[in-house]
Structures are given as C-alpha cells and as structure tokens.
C-alpha cells in the first residue's frame, strides 16, 4: 500500500487531518505504545500562527446527526513556542511531519513558511487558507486570485512541498485549486470543515462560544466526495481527500474519486486507533478489480 506523495515515500495512504489528533497529548494518554502503533503514514500538525492563540471561549463542541460542529479557534503556542516545544517532540514521531501554518496577512504566512523552509524535521508545509486576509477582507482560500497571490508570495521561500488546504466554504473550490496549482503549489488537501451553527436549547442564542463553527464527521462525507472529485478532475497535482471517512470503504471512495492520500479526522475522536483500522480495511479491499481494465493504477 506504499505511496509516493510529492516525493515523500509513505507506508500507506492514510494520514490525519490537521487539528484532529495531537500526537504529543496522545502520548501522555497512551504512552509509547502510540509510537509503536502510530496510526498515520504522515503526521499533519495543528495549525501554527505567528502569535500564540488561546482559542475560542467554550463551549466549543455540539453534536449533530452523524457528526459535530467545532469552534476551537486554532489554539497554539505561536511560532516561537512551536519551534521550541512542539517541533522537537514531533520530530521523534516515526513518520514524516507536515506542518500546517496560517497567517492573517500574506507576510505572516511568508514568515511562517520561511521559518520552516530549511528545517530538516519538516517534510512538507500545508497552508491553512480558511481565514480572512485582514488586508483585503477576503478569505484567502475562497477566491482564486487571493489564493494565487498567496502561493506566489511564499513559493520562492522553500523547496519543500507546499500543500494548500482548501475550504469548502467557497463558490468554486476547483477554481481555487487550479489557481494554487498554477502558482506553484505541489498538492491540495480538502475538505476543511463546513460552516455550521447550533442554538442553545433554552436561551436560543448560539451555543458555541465562537457563535458558528465547522461541521465534520459522517454527515459531510458525500459533500467531501463531490468536492474531491471536482478538484481532482481539475488539477494534475496530488490531492489529499478527507471528510467523514470512517472505514476502508470510505477511504477507497476518496481514492477512487481521484485522491492520492486520505486523511482521517473526526473518526479518531470516536476511536483513537481508527486510522489503523481504516488502513487495514483498505488493504483488505480488492481495489485493483474495481478499476476499469484499461486504467493504469495511479502511483
């Protein structure tokens, strides 16, 4: 099941979605067994911003039919804290590390990319473009020109693969993906969460401290599959597909829709070792038979 992704050799195609698994915290809960049975073929770390963030006020979660809405607000130690505390720990994981970064201006993103450009612990960078550019007021990943300007700005800063994490809250994610590709991105990943809201049962005010949040889980699987398919049909660069994957069969759907890798997120909340099970189930599927006989399997 080994797979090549942007020149990185991976043991299998299952990774995690950024912000859905904290390998450092999980090691505190499970001990070193976690490293022996590490569930992902590459580890994507939680979004790093230039400044530390404490995240949104609670409540941060609301369960919906087949999923949940989260409003976490990207808590992290900031760039300096990540480099000093998190990176040395994450470098000890038995798999390649992909660092996810987000800035509120292009220059902030450039500063983050430059900080990791030469770090040998880092295999690739993922750009979280689901936030507004405070200088233009546009969501960086919701507008193809905005995305192109960002990727053009950071592309010369590193030779490491750059993955653009697309938002599904865009008119045409495939157009954004095409703009990222044309500006030098090495891969795209999708979907991020879909915006959603819940009301407090009694007060009728928004339940979540951040008022709205992102919907994930089984409920978004069919939406994710459609977006992965649309993007994969539009670009030639590899696609990391995710959204509601709970089984090897779900992962096979994402791969057959055109993805090179599949990320597992919310299912890891339900079962810490879900990705191990999904890899096993995927491997046991006779997927070669499912393809049309004239189609060459992807690398």
């Amino acid at each position, binding site marked *: 099941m080994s797979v090549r992704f942007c020149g990185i050799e991976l043991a299998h195609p299952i990774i995690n979605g950024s912000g859905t698994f904290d390998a450092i915290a999980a090691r505190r809960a499970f001990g070193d067994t976690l490293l022996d049975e590490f569930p992902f073929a590459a580890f994507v770390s939680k979004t790093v911003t230039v400044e530390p963030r404490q995240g949104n006020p609670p409540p*941060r979660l609301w*369960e919906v039919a087949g999923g949940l809405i989260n409003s*976490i607000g990207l808590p992290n130690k900031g760039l300096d804290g990540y480099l000093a505390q998190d990176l040395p720990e994450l470098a000890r994981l038995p798999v390649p590390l992909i660092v996810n970064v987000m800035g509120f201006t292009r220059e902030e993103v450039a500063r983050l990319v430059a900080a990791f450009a030469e770090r040998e612990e880092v295999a690739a960078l993922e750009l979280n473009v689901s936030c507004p550019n405070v200088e233009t007021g546009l969501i960086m990943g919701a507008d193809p020109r905005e995305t192109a300007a960002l990727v053009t700005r950071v592309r010369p800063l590193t030779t490491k693969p750059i993955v653009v994490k697309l938002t599904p809250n865009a008119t045409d994610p495939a157009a954004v993906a095409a703009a990222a590709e044309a500006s030098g991105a090495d891969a795209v990943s999708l979907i991020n969460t879909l915006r959603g809201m819940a009301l407090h049962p009694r007060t009728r005010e928004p339940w979540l*401290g951040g008022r709205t949040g992102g919907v994930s889980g*089984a409920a978004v699987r069919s939406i994710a599959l459609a977006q992965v398919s649309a993007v994969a049909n539009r670009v030639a660069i590899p696609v990391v597909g995710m959204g509601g994957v709970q089984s090897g069969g779900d992962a096979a759907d994402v791969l057959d829709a055109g993805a090179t890798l599949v990320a597992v997120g919310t299912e890891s*909340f*339900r*079962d810490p070792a879900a990705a191990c099970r999904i890899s096993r189930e995927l491997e046991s599927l006779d997927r070669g038979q499912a393809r049309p006989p004239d189609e060459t399997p992807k690398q």
Partner: protein
Amino acid sequence: MSADRRTLAPFGRRRVPIVDRCEYGSYVVLRCLDEAGPAPRPGQFYMLAAAEAWGGGEGERPFLPRAFSVLRATPESELHFLLEAVGPGTKRLGALAEGEELWLAGPFGVGFAPPAEQRRPLLVGGGVGIAPLAIWQDELGLDATVLLGFRDAAHAEGAAVLAEARLATDDGSVGHRGLVTDLLIQELDHTDDARAAVYACGPPPMLEAVRALCAERGVPAQLALESGMACGYGACFGCVVPTRAGYVRLCLEGPVLDAELLETALIPGTGHG
C-alpha cells in the same frame, strides 16, 4: 502531575460485554468486564459508546462517545459506570442490557490526589456526579465523610452506591431539605478547617458553591469537573475550561482540578446529553 494519579490507557478502544445492569431510582449502573484494560485511578474516566446503533455509518445522534468517570473498579476487572438518561447518548447507554456490548476507551485523565496527612477527607457529591466519589471512598475507606445532594427521593436512591452518606434533597423527601453545601458547612463547622480536605463532583452551581466556600475558609478542595468532550485524549481541543492559567484541556489536565486553579467552577457547555 504525579504518575500515580494517571494510569495510561491502552491505545485504541475495546469492545467489552455488559455483565450486569441495575437501577437505583433515576440512575442506572452498568457493569462491564474490561479484561484487557488496566486498573484506573479514582477520578479517571472512560469514553463509552454502545457497540451497536451508535452513529455507525449513516449515523444519527449519538455519534461521539460519552465521557464517564469510573464509579467503581473491581479486582475481577469489572468497571462500573453510573448514568442517568438525560439525552440521546445516556438514553442509549442506559438501554443496554446484560450480554450487549460497549466500546470503551481509557482510563483517561488524572484522578484525585490523597489528602495531606492529618486532613480528613470530605466527599461532596451532587446528582450523577457522585460517581467518582464511590471509587475514591473504596480507596480512602470509611474515614471519609460522604455528603450527597439530590433533586428528590428517586434520585436519592443513587446514594446506595456509596456507604454511610449523609443526604440532602431539594424537596426534603430524604434527609436534609436544602443543598448539600448546607451539610458541608455543618461538617466544616465541626472540623478544624486546617484538618479538612474536600473532594467534590456534581453540577456546576454546586461545584462553584463548594469552590467559593473552601476558598473562603482556606480548605483545600479537588473538583472533578465535566466539560463536553469529543475524544477524551487531547485530540479535539473541545473540552477546555477557563483557569487562572488560561484554558486547559480537561481530558488531559483534569477531570480532577485543584479548586484554587479556578476562578469559577461554572463551566459553560455541560450537559449536552
């Protein structure tokens, strides 16, 4: 955090059989057999889901597992959990019968720390929050004074899971009419404050009353808190509670926190069911 307050969990979740289900008034105690798991520390918790009809694939709610402090662990590898059917998750778990199965992950979090020498433990519980006090009483023995508060007589039947408890009910149908914190004030008035250590678990208003009372009298208190959580092991960042040191993930740093870390125990977002 000292290692003896945290037993590490086996990685992943385990499918375990229910070996007994019994009712105590408004509450259900589920007993399951966890032969593959380690013994938990008092105050630690597990994430539970019914093995069938729980968000599988096309899932309706419940979808996420639910966090339960362990009520009791036996030398025969039984784990007991106390629950009250208040939402789709607890209703589904409460409907499980002997022979059916659970998904279980844990033990997670850090439990209670023993009282300093010369301090007498006072265990204060409210409603379904009495659960972690039972396993803590099992370890501390009968030197611990137990004060429990309930809404009414049907809920007060839950007191049977602990030994020798003084009771309060909101409607006065059992024990003292009023709040369990009334009983705590009486106990503290009869004890030198310098010789008491309080352990509490219950609804946020009760915990806040205990926290404020103990802060005022300089009595050390450990509070077992609740916060809605999706995973139990630090992945989702959903269960943060505000402390004097900023937000902390309750699943990693708690669920038992020193009361002095908190400005308030009124944690938003509990009781989603």
